[in-house]
């Protein structure tokens, strides 16, 4: 009996010492719990998200997307697609022409706040996430032009701010041009999610921003490729896609151009 008591006391002392030397971290405990919850919850969460797209409204679909991303916090592409879909959805509530811009601003702010939260988990892909954030205000303004009046300094100011943050993390002049070339990937992700409208908005914005590429020949070629894709997606099947199919930067889009 005494031996058992001594062993139990020793074990308790070891636990207490371990707790003192390495205090338990709530984030670590949460991550360990997530290891168990993730495989159980994800299939249902994903199914619910798709059901919300079909049967629920914008807010529900976005909230369900947050549940998925809470389980997969490092999935930056997921953050980007769901944030773009929410910001560009147009909202399920029909509003008058005068109210559309303020509704778009509200959605843009929420989407950017969510992407900002995603930066904590983005790791090496934080620059890409910042480039995603930089592009979103411009796409939102393409969809709702009067939104620019509600953004202090316009969408360009927000874009510059996020790109400046990206340049701090990865000091290179390429950061400012690279985000224009990322957009086919973003459009492909939106098409894969079934959101053709948002994908077309992304392509429209990328075409207008392609003028910022300093190499004029490259800018013209890039704009032509994007325009071919856009026309095809808008239903113009007479477009010759040979050059698009040969361009490796467009590979993500090819499954959606059949």
């Amino acid at each position, binding site marked *: 009996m005494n031996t058992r008591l001594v062993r139990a006391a020793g074990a308790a002392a070891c636990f207490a010492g371990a707790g003192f030397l390495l205090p338990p971290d709530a984030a670590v405990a*949460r991550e360990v*719990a*997530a290891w168990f*919850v993730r495989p159980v*919850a994800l299939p*249902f*969460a994903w*199914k*619910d998200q798709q059901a*919300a*797209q*079909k*049967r*629920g*409204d*914008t*807010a*529900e679909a*976005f*909230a*369900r997307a*947050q*549940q998925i991303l*809470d*389980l997969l916090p490092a999935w930056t592409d997921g953050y980007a697609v769901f944030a773009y879909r*929410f910001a560009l959805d*147009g*909202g*399920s*509530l*029909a*509003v*008058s*022409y005068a*109210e*559309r811009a303020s509704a778009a601003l509200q*959605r843009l702010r*929420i989407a950017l*706040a*969510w992407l900002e*939260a995603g930066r904590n988990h983005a790791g090496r892909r934080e620059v890409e996430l910042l480039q995603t954030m930089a592009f979103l205000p411009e796409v939102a303004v393409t969809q709702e032009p009067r939104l620019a009046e509600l953004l202090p300094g316009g969408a360009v100011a927000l874009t510059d701010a996020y790109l400046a943050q990206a340049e701090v993390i990865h000091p290179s002049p390429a950061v400012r041009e690279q985000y224009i070339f990322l957009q086919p990937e973003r459009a492909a992700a939106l098409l894969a999610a*079934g*959101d*053709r*409208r948002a994908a077309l908005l992304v392509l429209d914005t990328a075409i207008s921003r392609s003028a910022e590429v300093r190499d004029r020949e490259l800018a013209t070629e890039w704009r032509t490729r994007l325009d071919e894709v856009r*026309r095809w997606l*808008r*239903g*113009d099947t007479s477009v010759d896609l040979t050059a698009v199919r040969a361009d490796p930067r467009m590979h993500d889009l090819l499954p959606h151009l059949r």
Partner: protein
Amino acid sequence: MLLAWSLQALSRPQLGALAGDGAAAAGSPWLVLPLFVAAIACAVAAVRFWPVFAARADGADWVHRLQRGPWRGCGAAIAAALLAQVVLSLPITTLLARAIGAPGLAHAHVALAGPDVPLLDERGPRMRFDVPPGLTFDEVQLRPIASLPAGPLRTSRLRVLADGESMTDAEVAFEQSQQLVRVRCAARTCHHLDLVLAEGNVPLYFAGDSVVLIAAGGHSTIWNGVALAVIALVPTFVALSIACLCGVAAALATVLTVLASLLFVQTIGEAGPLAGAARGLLRGEWLGAGPHFPACFPFLAAGALAMILTMVSRRNPRR
């Protein structure tokens, strides 16, 4: 409930509430999970308590000899389990549902039946829906299926007319399938609702429940919670009935496995009416008027059939 709360804390949409009212429906797993726990606790307790539920269980012979009736008391045991579940479920479907974010008032959703070919396009740019008489509504929800346009895409914009009068100056535009547009208006009644294609070339197909009117008068979510607690009994009844049928030949372990599997599939697996009803409750949909109770009937029929088969297959013991 503690498990549900801890899981919810682990995965709670933080910006959902900012996004709009409908975000509460994303909390449906945290409503279904405690209901599943309550259901399985009551069902397992019933099966373990009443020996006739499983073949060769201790005391089953005595019950067979003493308890007459077609189910040897299993029917009463199932009824007791369902009553116990109601008691456990009511706080979950009322108080917990409100805590998760269910709106205080639930509104009836009335789907309108369209014409025989409910296709709105440039060749048929007007469509009429008959509104049930006396229905006062303050919102119309449109969710058509969009087809591919002929030629370059131009967004289809609609006008919504109630008895020929425009309901809103808001833009009602569709580009892709399953896109939801909610048109709010002052509470009103009407005889006909017309959808008119103003411009665009995306053909829109308004089938099934693509056009839904939201009734203006609300019902307390407490009553909606009571309705959900009743619907939550259906999976338990079906699982216990089929477990009872299995128990004619199978031992306790098999019966419990069948019971747990059926309950899991019907609740967490969303094969039954419970998950849809839970989402409806959190969306503020009045369960008494929607398709949720009619959706229970096939399951109730399956449970009743299992009970009949149990009755037929039980042999009378020697006295």
